[in-house]
């Protein structure tokens, strides 16, 4: 018997025989000019008299962002990549008219030099299990396309043949856990809201994707909004809610736009509104946008924001399942979580639970980025190793650099080092290893990444995003950031590490919400895995990765400088001044840290980290 992944992939082989071009409309492809490619294609089609016969559509993200701008030509399912508007001519004349594949525009595997025609042949896709992303990059966001692939069939099935308790039972049996970061069993959460007594209940889909390095919610909302909507309606039926909201980041205007359109289409077909599909169940859905506050991803803060105020978090309990929006029982599920629901209902919890180890069923979408060859969304069964994700799917580290660490879970998460490459990526294993899956951000770092700087980066983020309501988070994050700044500037002392650890513990135990409780995680995990690097910054005033500016900036040792002027001539920023007989000096205000001067100096008078060393001498 084929797996659920294979079955879904088979279903999505296009039944039509006519030509159709789907252009990737993910953010990177949009930035690289996919719209111009589309316009050029339309122009060429017109020249050949094919206007209207070959539709060209911009859809959601196809997947591998390093190939953009890219497109898929159906019915062959060929992927043409790294396109410029000029390539439209070849695609139309050669491929569409003459029936010859344009090999020059196909993707070539850099390792085997083999030409890869279809998405499924590429290692980036071959090793994935695309359940949540089943429709992303395959269909357009329009409801007609969604309906062709059994769209809203799960909703019809649930409404016609299952009562709410049976739906909840099925979700519980599937073993699905919340994909937003908490990992709480979804079925249990639904049951809590179902059994809460109230005249009114709400469902909220949390699309406030705040991790600066995660973009799966955005791609799903842009590429497959109807799967999200269908999942929310089923959730509402199960818990007994009549109103729902999708809370989206304001930074995602395209996602907001696509969702609005999708909701209108769903309403028109009576999947939303009164007496849905004549079953007597009524439910309506609205979009609300955030306004750029990371803390609003936290459930209670999100509710505050949805009610039109500052996004201040509240103490739990009461949990939103008991007292949420307007004080009523409220179910809050993440985008990726709800997209799993139609699958579970349609194919059964048993098929779903075939994927992933016990207690960690299903798949997880990771946003693979950083120092890795193939950037993009990667969906794999929970329990897949980090090695497989980074090397087999992501194509390894660019420029033959060495893997140093992977950061998971964003500002609330931690780092995994080389020793964790064979760790199964699931909720429990990651927690044991000192990190979390979080919302699925996965940033790869090589030997040129500084772990102290990374910890400072995340603390800077958390400190900036702290709402300021509770003292441990407000003051703790500030003090910790100051200490980390001191270390990265080469002014650290050994006792700082102890103070950092104490502050981290205080913040973890004393903060009101998850933001403050998890903010010390990036620091603690890097401190545990890369203590040597911290000590190098403190004791030797050296940044081994060459990242921390104060420690790597060039400095001319006046005792060694012979005032030859070579450095000043090669400096592109005109930052070096001097005259004959007097040692040259670097104006660090102008200096761009290119270090050309250092390489050129024949007397080795220029070194890195001079500022802090000079200060240390003072």
């Amino acid at each position: 018997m084929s797996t659920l992944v294979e079955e879904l992939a088979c279903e999505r082989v296009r039944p039509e025989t006519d030509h159709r071009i789907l252009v990737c409309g993910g953010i990177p492809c949009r930035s690289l000019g996919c719209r111009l490619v589309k316009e050029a294609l339309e122009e060429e089609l017109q020249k050949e008299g094919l206007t209207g016969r070959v539709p060209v559509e911009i859809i959601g993200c196809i997947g591998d962002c390093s190939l953009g701008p890219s497109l898929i030509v159906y019915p062959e399912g060929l992927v043409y990549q790294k396109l410029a508007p000029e390539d439209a001519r070849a695609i139309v004349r050669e491929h569409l008219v003459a029936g010859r594949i344009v090999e020059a525009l196909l993707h070539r595997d850099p390792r085997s030099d083999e030409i890869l025609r279809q998405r499924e042949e590429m290692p980036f896709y071959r090793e994935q299990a695309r359940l949540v992303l089943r429709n992303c990059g395959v269909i357009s966001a329009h409801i007609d396309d969604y309906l062709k692939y059994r769209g809203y069939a799960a909703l019809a099935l649930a409404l016609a043949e299952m009562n709410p308790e049976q739906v909840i039972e099925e979700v519980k049996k599937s073993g699905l856990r919340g994909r937003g970061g908490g990992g709480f069993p979804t079925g249990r959460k639904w049951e809590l809201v179902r059994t809460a007594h109230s005249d009114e209940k709400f469902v909220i889909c949390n699309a406030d994707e705040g991790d600066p390095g995660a973009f799966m919610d955005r791609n799903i909302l842009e590429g497959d909004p109807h799967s999200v909507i269908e999942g929310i309606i089923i959730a509402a039926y199960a818990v007994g809610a009549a109103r729902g909201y999708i809370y989206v980041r304001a930074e995602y205007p395209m996602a907001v736009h696509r969702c609005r359109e999708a909701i209108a289409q769903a309403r028109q077909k009576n999947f939303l509104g009164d007496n849905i599909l004549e079953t007597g169940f009524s439910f309506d859905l609205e979009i609300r946008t955030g306004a750029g506050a990371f803390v609003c991803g936290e459930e209670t803060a999100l509710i505050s924001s949805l009610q039109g105020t500052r996004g201040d978090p509240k103490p739990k309990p009461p949990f939103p399942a008991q007292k949420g929006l307007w004080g009523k029982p409220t179910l809050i599920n993440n985008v990726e979580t709800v997209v799993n629901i139609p699958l579970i209902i349609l194919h059964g919890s048993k098929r779903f639970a075939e994927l992933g180890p016990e207690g960690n069923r299903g798949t997880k979408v990771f946003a693979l980025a950083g120092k890795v060859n193939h950037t993009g969304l990667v969906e794999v069964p929970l329990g897949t190793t980090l090695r497989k994700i980074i090397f087999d799917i992501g194509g390894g580290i660019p420029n033959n650099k060495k893997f140093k660490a992977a950061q998971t879970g964003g500002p609330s998460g931690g780092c995994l080092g080389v020793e964790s490459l064979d760790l199964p990526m699931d909720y429990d294993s990651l927690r044991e290893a000192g990190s979390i899956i979080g919302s699925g951000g996965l940033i790869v770092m090589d030997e040129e990444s500084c772990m102290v700087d990374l910890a400072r980066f995340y603390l800077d983020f958390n400190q900036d995003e702290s709402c300021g309501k509770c003292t441990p988070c407000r003051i703790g994050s500030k003090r910790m950031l100051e200490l980390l700044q001191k270390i990265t500037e080469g002014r650290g002392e050994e006792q700082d590490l102890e103070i950092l650890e104490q502050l981290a513990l205080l913040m973890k135990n004393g903060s009101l919400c998850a933001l403050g409780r998890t903010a010390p995680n990036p620091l603690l995990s890097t401190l545990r895995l890369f203590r040597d690097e911290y000590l190098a910054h403190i004791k030797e005033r050296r940044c081994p990765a060459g990242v921390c500016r104060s420690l790597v900036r060039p400095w001319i040792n006046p005792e060694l400088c012979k005032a030859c002027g070579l450095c000043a001539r090669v400096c592109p920023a005109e930052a070096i001044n001097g005259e004959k007989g007097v040692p040259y000096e670097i104006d660090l205000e102008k200096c761009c840290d290119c270090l050309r001067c250092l390489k050129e100096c024949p007397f080795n008078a220029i070194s890195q980290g001079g500022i802090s060393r000079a200060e240390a001498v003072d």
Partner: protein
Amino acid sequence: MEQIIDKYRGDSTAMIAILHDLNAAFRYLPREALEIVSDRLSVPLSYLYSAATFYRSFDLEPCGEHEIQVCLGTACHVRGSERILDALSRRLGIKPGETTADGKFTLKRVNCLGACALGPLVSIDQKHHGHLTIHQAERLLEAYKDEHD
């Protein structure tokens, strides 16, 4: 102004949506505008300011004609975006969050533009420029200045 408030029919829960619309219309939130909203929705002005200062999307100072956003998401960060921010800041003679004296450019740091494959990434007036080096970013700025002079 009236249109924006009327669109939400005096619904005080729509406050954030109203602030979004005002910010887009004026390119910041003028005090006079907030006073009118306060009056019409019968909410204290301090309440509006508490939200306006809380969310990153709102500006309390007028923005420049052109908005430069430097993405400081994690993927951009590990590829060196902070140095690009520094270089642009030096070239413009302003700190992140400030506007040049001639009112032409506002320099902003943003958490993540969600285009991690393109990092380091700078967006000028919503147009993304990816895979930048410090020199390319500086040249980009110069070209932009010339074009809009």
